[in-house]
């Protein structure tokens, strides 16, 4: 009996961790075609902002967590405007270039680029990986320089739930609840709101969306900010339970990327199904053979999924649906 409860808690734990780790990454990848290798560092921003809001500003924890998510969303917006879309640097260059070429001798002015400096990174998978990997290195080192090798952690709220000889952190149950609520919220946003409908239209055909009056650039910026805000929320939620050091983002990366690869293109369904499947595998193996084998099982599953379901779970579902439709 107790072991079944252990297994159930372990499953909830992995499920919540995978959903929360992957949600922001999945949205940015699914809608913008940008692989954000700095995803872990966006989580870092959320975790640090939350911790500092409690320790330095004195906010209560829930308000601090909200602040952590909002700060990260704002940070994501800045990253989108400068690195991902290049709109900021291009704007500056457009104003600087005429003056610069007037001031320089003709031969030097001739080699200045006349058009925009940066092409947007939308749907350029490899390029976006390189750019965000650079960003990730800068952020980890930047955090180390500014805040040192670790900062004080906030205490885990809510205490423990005891059953038989075991006990379990009640806060981790809250995380499981939050992860389910988050999936519901993201589903609602992308299915029922005008923003969600436009974002999905932009993924399917951004030229036509633009010709219908949709400001696609604003949709991309909002999407990146939303994905960043979710990463920040993940950092905020895990701030009380993981140690606060500049590299904390890396422990989320494996689960986040495996979940996105296994889930496939559909953001909500893909993340939910892959978190449920991977969470079950990880918790059963961890429960039976220890955490080390749990992780190995997770990675093996990812390799098998890449081999047999190249489009992820939702890609497979889509294929089956199409075949049924043709047959009927």
């Amino acid at each position: 009996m107790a072991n079944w409860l252990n297994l159930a808690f372990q499953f909830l734990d992995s499920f919540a961790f995978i959903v929360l780790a992957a949600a922001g990454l999945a949205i940015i990848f699914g809608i913008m075609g940008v692989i954000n290798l700095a995803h872990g560092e966006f989580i870092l921003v959320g975790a640090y902002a939350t911790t500092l809001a409690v320790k330095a500003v004195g906010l209560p924890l829930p308000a601090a967590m909200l602040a952590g998510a909002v700060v990260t969303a704002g940070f994501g917006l800045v990253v989108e405007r400068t690195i991902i879309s290049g709109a900021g640097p291009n704007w500056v260059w457009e104003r600087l270039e005429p003056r610069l070429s007037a001031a320089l001798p003709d031969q030097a002015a001739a080699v200045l680029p006349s058009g925009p400096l940066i092409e947007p990174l939308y749907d350029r998978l490899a390029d976006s990986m390189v750019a965000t990997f650079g960003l990730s290195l800068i952020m980890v080192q930047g955090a180390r320089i500014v805040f040192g090798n670790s900062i004080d952690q906030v205490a885990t709220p809510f205490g423990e739930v005891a059953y038989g000889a075991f006990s379990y952190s009640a806060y981790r149950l809250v995380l499981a609840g939050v992860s389910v609520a988050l999936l519901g919220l993201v589903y609602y946003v992308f299915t029922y709101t005008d923003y969600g409908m436009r974002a999905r239209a932009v993924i399917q055909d951004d030229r036509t969306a633009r010709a219908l009056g949709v400001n696609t650039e604003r949709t991309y910026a909002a999407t990146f900010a939303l994905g960043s805000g979710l990463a920040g929320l993940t950092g905020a939620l895990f701030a009380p339970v993981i140690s606060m050091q500049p590299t904390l983002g890396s422990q989320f990366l494996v689960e986040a990327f495996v979940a996105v690869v296994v889930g496939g293109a559909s953001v909500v369904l893909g993340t939910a199904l892959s978190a449920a499947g991977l969470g079950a595998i990880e918790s059963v193996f961890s429960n039976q053979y220890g955490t080390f084998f749990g992780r190995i099982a997770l990675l093996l599953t990812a390799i098998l999924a890449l081999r047999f379901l190249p489009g992820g779970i939702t890609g497979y579902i889509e294929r089956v649906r199409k075949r049924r439709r043709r047959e009927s």
Partner: protein
Amino acid sequence: MTLLALSDVTAAYDRTPILRDVDLAVDEGEIVGVMGKNGVGKSTLMKTVIGLLEPESGTITYRGEDVTGLSADDRARRGIGYIPQGRDVFPKLTVEQNVRMGETINADSDEYLYESVYDYFPVLEERADQSAGTLSGGEQQMLAIARALVANPDLLLLDEPSEGIQPSIVDQISEDMQAINDELGTTILFVEQKETISGYLAV
């Protein structure tokens, strides 16, 4: 009054000029058709008017204002409804959501013509909750027209509406376009290869 005017417009794909010094004027309330064989630049013309393609030179004026430097979404919000060649409905959105996507056109008006649109194309109301990818070609064409029309634009751009659609539906769509022009006063600019549709639409 002239609603849309192109003067000396030259447009190119990757430096291959497709349109050279094109002049065109469309008056308010008119139906204007541009006929021509495949590859003479009809779609290029439409893309240049809506702003998906930037002309190399020349000017495009809409309602007396120079819109040459504006992006496609900006032009659409000023009241141009574009119906792309091959329809380009959003296959994974529902029929109803596809129509709602047209609400951003003509930002000046908050009034949406759902009733008239569903009067012209009742099949779209029947299939409102179906995903648009499951519709037939003719139905997708109706959906693309409904999407462009719902926000009551002043100008509709129709790019080869008869392409890949069975003749009976082409006839029906031609009649609908005539009715839209009569009843809503919408100006229509269309391009076609075949004579069939221009026979219905008084050029």
